[in-house]
């Protein structure tokens, strides 16, 4: 019973990781690529961690696996946000099918941030 559960978790995790990688390869844009890879790989890694925790079973590895999971769950959205922000301000071209770009309505979004003294870089 436990082996079937572990097998299901590991196969689902590997499948979602592969889906994230395929999305990274086939999406047309930096932002859509990041969207695909970040979410799918987080879910895949969560499934792999659950399967590994069930397989190992002792307390020390449970703590380590839980800390990896919590860390990845916290840092992946932050990293994705920072990359998206950097890519947008570095004028990476959007996909030609993009419908809405709300930042373009403001004439110079960077000028306002640069005038603030001691603002974040």
């Amino acid at each position: 019973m436990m082996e079937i559960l572990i097998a299901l978790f590991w196969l689902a995790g590997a499948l979602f990781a592969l889906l994230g990688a395929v999305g990274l390869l086939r999406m047309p844009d930096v932002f859509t690529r990041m969207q695909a890879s970040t979410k799918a790989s987080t879910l895949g890694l969560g499934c792999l961690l659950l399967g590994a925790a069930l397989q190992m079973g002792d307390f020390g590895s449970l703590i380590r696996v839980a800390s990896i999971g919590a860390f990845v769950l916290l840092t992946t959205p932050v990293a994705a946000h920072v990359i998206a922000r950097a890519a947008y301000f570095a004028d990476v071209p959007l996909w030609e099918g993009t419908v809405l770009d709300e930042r373009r309505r403001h004439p110079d979004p960077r000028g306002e941030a640069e005038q603030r003294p001691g603002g974040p870089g």
Partner: protein
Amino acid sequence: MVDIVAHITLATLGIALLVSVVRLVKGPSLPDRIVAMDLVGVLVVGFIVVLAAWTGVQATLDAAIVIALIGFLGTIAYATYVERGHRE
């Protein structure tokens, strides 16, 4: 049964690593490469965790923790570099 499943899982993760390395080499812009490198880090963490659970060597999990940390810091550093390089 766990042996067969671990083989299949590790092979699939290896294919995913190869696919994301293709994007890492091909990527037209620098943020594409940063995203691909981030995904490579996450996939390597998953690979190491499955390998640790399969072989039963608990100390390997510490390496996975360190790789997750360094991957996050590297991603933040590269993103800051992209933004600041554009400003000057």
